[in-house]
């Protein structure tokens, strides 16, 4: 079977996978896309968050059989050093990550939020980002999402204005 991942069709050898295998382990152990993380295995922590047709999904509890033809986007497909997503720019500006392990999942959840709600309130962010971060980056995550939202609303601005003090 083929999976549509980050805009490319990727063939999956049948003998390597199982329809019950969660997408997370297909990404990490079969395709070597290690940006999506394992944290709890029960969809509770969000470290494994990817997007399926734009909708955030906990890939550790999403069996391969449930992905079907939907487009999978992982952190590797969000943006890169050459073309960072507005959220990634904001992450750098606010110096969000500490250990960084949960950040892929947070970024994917935040990207989905901004497409759905280009100008989210604090309450919107609280409701949408149920990912767990053990290092306590939450206040900066919130601030960075607001910065990214502002940058996306004014696409002409090269870089968003720096905050007075992070976060």
């Amino acid at each position, binding site marked *: 079977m083929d999976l549509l991942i980050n805009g490319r069709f990727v063939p999956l050898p049948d*003998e*390597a996978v*199982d329809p019950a*295998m*969660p997408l997370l*382990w297909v990404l*990490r*152990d079969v395709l*070597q*896309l*290690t*940006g*999506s*993380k*394992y*944290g*709890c*295995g*029960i969809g*509770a*922590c969000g*470290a494994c968050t990817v997007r399926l047709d734009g909708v955030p999904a906990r890939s550790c509890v999403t069996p391969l059989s449930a992905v079907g033809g939907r487009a999978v986007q992982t*952190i*590797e497909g*969000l*943006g*890169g*050093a050459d073309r*960072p997503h507005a959220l*990634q720019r904001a*992450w*750098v500006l606010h*110096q*969000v*990550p*500490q*250990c*960084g*392990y949960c*950040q*892929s999942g947070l*970024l994917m959840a935040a990207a989905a939020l901004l497409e759905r709600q280009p100008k989210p309130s604090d309450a919107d*962010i*609280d*409701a949408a*980002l*149920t*990912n*767990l*971060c*053990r*290092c*306590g*980056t*939450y*206040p*900066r*995550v*919130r601030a960075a999402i607001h910065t990214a939202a502002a940058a996306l609303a004014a696409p002409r601005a090269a870089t968003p204005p720096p905050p007075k003090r*992070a976060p």
Partner: protein
Amino acid sequence: MKRRTLLLGAAAAGGGLLLGWAALPPRSRLGDRALLALQAGEVAFNGWIKVAADGGVALAMNRSEMGQGVHTTLPMLVAEELDIGLDRVRLVQAGADAVYGNVATFVASLPFHPRDSEPGRRTAAVKGGEWVVAKLARELGINMTGASTSIVDAWEPLRLAAATVRAQLVGAASLRWRLPKEEIAVRDGVVSHASGVHAHFGELAGAAAGTPAGDVALKPRAAWTLIGRDTPRTDVVAKSDGSAVYGLDVRPEGLLYAAVRMCPVLGGAPQRIGNEDEVLRRPGVQRLVRLPARAGATAGVAVVARSSWHARQAVEALAIDWASPPAGTVDSQAIAASLEAAARDALAQDGGLAYHRRGDVAAAERGAGPGARTVEALYRAPYLAHFALEPINCTAQVRDGHVTVWAPTQVPGIARAHAARAAGVDERAVTLHVTLLGGGFGRRLDADFVAQAVAVAQETGGRPVQLLWSREEDTTHDYYRPAAAAALKAVLGADGRPLSLRIASAGDAITPRWMERGLPWLAGPVDLPDKTTAEGLFDQPYDIAHQRIAHVATRSGVPVGYWRSVGHSHNAFFLESFIDELAHAAQQDPVAYRLALLAGSPRHAAVLQLAAQQSGWGRPSPAGRARGVALHESFGSIVAQVAEVSLAAGGVPRVHRVVCAIDCGTVVNPGIVRQQMEGGIVFGLSAALHGGIDIVAGVVQQKNFPEQPLLTLAESPRIETHLVASEHPPGGVGEPGTPPIAPAVANALFALTGVRRRGLQLRG
């Protein structure tokens, strides 16, 4: 008689040698240049620094990056002294030599009272003790990232290593250009003279490495261009695009995956496995390896398969008969009751080990005049798990008598020793790569999982194997923050000021257990006093004339370990809640009450005043909210926090805002200090509101996040951090943010409800 004389003579000679050794200056921490492996064109200067042909610098990184920012702050020290851009300092893995060991942790483990060990008022006993322990620690060379010591430990040696290289580069330029050293400048990685001659580091390195450094001086504070500046972290881009490599992300060629199941009863072991053959026949499954109880881990089994998921499915399907430990099982409720009894008894009978004594407590209590009041309270705290978001894992390969390990570890030396022992090889046959850590918080000061990974890798025919614990295994086989109890008693004079303070706390000693697991050659037959569980009670600054602060070290049988801020994590809650009780009994403002006890501690008073002032202390809180304050010194830094709290539906505390002030001495990177305060507060708040591990008949009851919630973004308060400008030597920042938050919230809840909560967690 003769034999006795001989023995005495030998003892005298041995003692003399020991004294002689103790009097010698400590071994240099510059390190031999031969310690660094070189690539083409590179030149090593000492054990820390090498220069590439293009003039870039490489630093041997001896500390683990687990979020606290060492991959940014340690190279900042080097870039500062070398006058080269931070982006031109590359990190390479430090090796096994003792020069990379942690001296500061061992010096800090001495149970001195801060009033005897603060800069400027160190007593002779403190100076002597620290000198000898620093020498000993330098010889032992135990490499660990913990106890908030990375900057503290690197502060002198790393700057000196870089300043030495700089002096050598200037010396070489002086010889080459026949110009006086004093006229040669170094800027932005270029050595130059006003006449126009210049060279980058790479052009001078070959000659400079052999040039004597002469007198090396560190840059004066006024000349710093990097230290103290809000410098962006070097790891943020990789941690925002998925490219950062944690332990779980290494993918060596031919990698296999292993899943682990340990006996659910702590200390138990697997016996018969009913369906081993059937499970091993499943697609993708390769083999089963029995894991002994080694390096502190409970015994279990591992299944090797072609993916982590295949391995997990298979190991879960095994029908295993488990045997309970012969020593019996542990029960957290019974332990809590015994700790409370031990604390009460020690308070009443002058029991436990007195870590601090001042004046005469008994006489002060007897002699208290009319109007004196006695306040007594018993406090308690539960077991806690670490919950690093990256579950325990390790990757290992055993091939042709050589072991390669990729480990997210805080203790590379211990990890290497475990790997060597598990494979039956010499430590020199082990190559260890320390990956990024998806959180450490003290859990990765144990390296039991390295022994497991190597044991499995011995059975895979030379192929590398990645061993992963499920979240459930991670939670149920942690080394827990010990449960603790403390009995406190103060007598207040008619003016409300405490005349005397007695504290007796009880809890399991951590260090002796940790040494048994990781450094068995250092673990003695008898437990030495362990400061790490007593800290935070005996070492606080309040000026109370009569004190007896004691601790009863217990041994419950629960595997206990270091948890971010260790003893301070519960002791700050005990003491700072109790001080609040005293202020209330004295009918005084909690900030003013504390300030009156801090006349001799101006740094503490300044931190407390800053937090109070920035929080609006003394002005009315927003409707439905109340403020609470706490002040606590730990790991060489002083932190005060004011929490603004309300009660949500069902009596659940909601923390809206935390104002934090810190004096951590000289600040290397203010942005990272603020980040660590935020992290420490969220970590402590998570425990204060949700934390608690229960053990019934040896089985940990909480297994995954639904049973043991962590603080969420929605629950996260607004956090404002204010730094006190200071020229003291740097203190730690990774842990000091955690201790004050629980008492600050508890004190706010008291202000809000009039109900004093003396146990954690604070919910309900």
